[in-house]
């Protein structure tokens, strides 16, 4: 009995402690909560990012840098000996690089919140969320000499700047592709229909990207195949359009063997034959090609894609190494190497002189008109991105819930 009383006492104490902690949180957190709500509401119109100081000059390098990157964006030669742009950086600047890869933009946003990373390669569906949350700092592009060589059509874009202030440096852009096993899949697919309406042919062996942003791929397909729905932009879906995309994905779910967000898992699934067709990135094709008969195409409907930005964490303890990294990764040499390895168009106009013959042409690097055709990942918000004002669009949070529902 005595024992039990101590236990109850401890329980009460524990609860009281938690409550008091929570109460403190309510007091001090109330303001910031209201702030971010305001920001979200103001987003699109006059959205005011939190006041984060910007570096005005550089000092000595701190000797360490922690990089949060898409797989393949920070190679140090461990994957492939000839693919290495981290070691030259370390030798040149003395900043010891520590790389963490992430699989989805959401993961990047969550990890950046931890404040443990100095720089991040963020896609358009992560950048504004990071800026609005105060997780990244404005970037002083005057301190980055290579910025001047980057294509102008990538600068001051809605996904990498706010009110004319850059929050990072452009890295490169590319499209999500359709990969298939050439031994199994015939005839050769030309359309995303192969993983939607035609998914039944490869039932149980279809794979899809495991992120709510994949809803945009379905929306893009509907945009081309069902014009009645009136989808203009796959990231601006009203409730009915989202429902149509969700239905399409639920039908696809019946035939999906696995969803992937870990690129190694997709490679392995293609190797063992557990997946034979599905969405992919060029870098995955490059890695899988070695021992699996796979091919990737850009389907006729066009594709969703990414335009990435290197950003600097708001709480970084290594600002000088961070700036050094941003300058290094946008240098013609490094930018060319990343672009070729990952399979995307580089952001530095001089990089194309260093890539292999015909590479930049095949990715239409620098071709502004082509670049506008890719539907870059952006965060869906209440104000329709396609300019409609008579309806409210679905937010990313709604997409997230829809995604759980799709997977079932």
């Amino acid at each position, binding site marked *: 009995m005595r*024992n039990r009383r*101590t*236990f109850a*006492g*401890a*329980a009460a*104490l*524990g*609860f009281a*402690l*938690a*409550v008091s*902690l*929570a109460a403190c*949180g*309510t007091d001090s*957190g*109330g303001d*910031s*909560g209201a702030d*971010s*709500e305001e*920001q*979200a509401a103001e*987003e699109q119109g006059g959205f005011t990012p939190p006041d984060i100081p910007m570096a005005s000059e550089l000092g000595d390098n701190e000797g360490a840098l922690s990089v949060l990157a898409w797989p393949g964006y920070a190679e140090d030669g461990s994957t492939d000996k000839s693919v290495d742009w981290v070691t030259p950086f370390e030798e040149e600047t003395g900043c010891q690089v520590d790389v963490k890869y992430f699989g*989805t933009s*959401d*993961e990047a*946003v*969550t990890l950046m*919140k931890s404040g443990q990373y100095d720089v991040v390669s963020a896609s358009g569906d992560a950048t*504004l*969320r990071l800026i*609005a*949350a105060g997780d990244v700092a404005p970037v002083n592009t005057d301190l980055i000499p290579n910025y001047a060589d980057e294509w102008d059509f990538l600068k001051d874009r809605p996904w990498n700047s706010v009110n004319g202030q850059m929050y990072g440096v452009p890295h490169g852009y590319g499209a999500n592709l359709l990969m298939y096993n050439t031994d199994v899949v015939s005839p050769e697919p030309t359309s995303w229909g192969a993983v939607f309406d035609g998914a039944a042919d490869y039932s*149980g*062996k279809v794979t899809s990207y495991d*992120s*709510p942003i994949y809803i945009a791929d379905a929306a893009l397909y509907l945009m081309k195949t069902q014009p009645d729905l009136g989808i203009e932009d796959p990231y601006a879906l009203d409730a009915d359009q989202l429902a149509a995309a969700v239905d399409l994905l639920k039908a696809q*779910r019946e035939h*999906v*063997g*696995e*969803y992937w*967000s870990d690129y190694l898992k997709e490679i392995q699934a293609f190797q*063992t*034959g*557990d997946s034979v067709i599905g969405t992919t990135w060029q870098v995955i094709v490059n890695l899988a090609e070695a021992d699996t008969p796979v091919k990737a195409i850009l389907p006729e409907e066009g594709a969703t894609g990414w335009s990435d930005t290197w950003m600097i964490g708001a709480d970084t303890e290594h600002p000088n190494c961070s700036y050094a990294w941003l300058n290094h990764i946008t240098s013609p040499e490094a930018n060319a190497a990343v672009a070729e390895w990952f399979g995307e168009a580089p952001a530095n106009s001089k990089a194309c002189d260093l890539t292999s013959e015909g590479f930049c042409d095949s990715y239409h690097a620098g071709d502004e008109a082509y670049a506008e055709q890719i539907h870059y990942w952006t*965060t869906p*918000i209440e104000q329709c991105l396609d300019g409609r004002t008579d309806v409210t669009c679905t*937010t*990313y*949070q*709604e997409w*997230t*819930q829809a995604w*759980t*529902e799709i*997977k*079932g």
Partner: protein
Amino acid sequence: MLWLGVAYLGALAALFITALWTANGFTGNIERTWTLDNFRELFSQEVYRTITIRTLLTAVGVTIIDAVIAFPVALYMAKVASPRAQRLLVIAILTPLWASYLVKAYAWRGMFSSSGPIDWLLSPFGLSSPGYGLFATVVTLSYLWLPYMILPMYAGLERLPNSLLEASADLGAGAGVTMRRVILPVLFPAVVAGSIFAFSLTLGDYIAVQIVGGANQMLGNVIYDNVLKGNNLPFAAAVATIPVVIMLVYLAAVRRTGALENL
């Protein structure tokens, strides 16, 4: 005891409180306003009910499979094997625990892959590997938690004096009756202890499902996705209260049987 209460129950209370907040849909920052929205959504959306039931059934399935497999193994170890063989068997049961969880889960991924050993074994019979999915998940989890079931059962049976079995036989009971009226009642607390491990570990698991579960998701995955992908910590906290409630109910039921006192 006091600190355990503060640390453990305090964390649980903090979890429950977080569940009453919301996350900003755009930035993912937590907004500390009190609301029951998370729970409302949890109960109104059918998908969460489906996932809860799927998780619960998987946990029950894994527990039963483990209990059924563990019983003969534990019985042989405790009552039939020579002391030397007994030691070797205990080592054999414990060895897999030294290997990483991930290594074992990935090994099963290889087993179930469409060009893997299971497919190879079944192909002469015109069958193919069941592939990744719930079945593979149940098998993998049963394998992973089996030692946690065998060990308490073995300990329980070892405490059972042989004289009791002999007395039962002397009084004319057959093997079946001895099993039912002597062995099982003594073993019951051990089974309960083992089932708490297998059941609760399965209830919270999300890694094995990701590796061999195909496109299926469990409660653990929903929590994981909301923390790491959805940037919605409060909703994840709301989902996390489901397994807590299930375990509380389970433990209360176990307590009523009195098995905990006999451990």
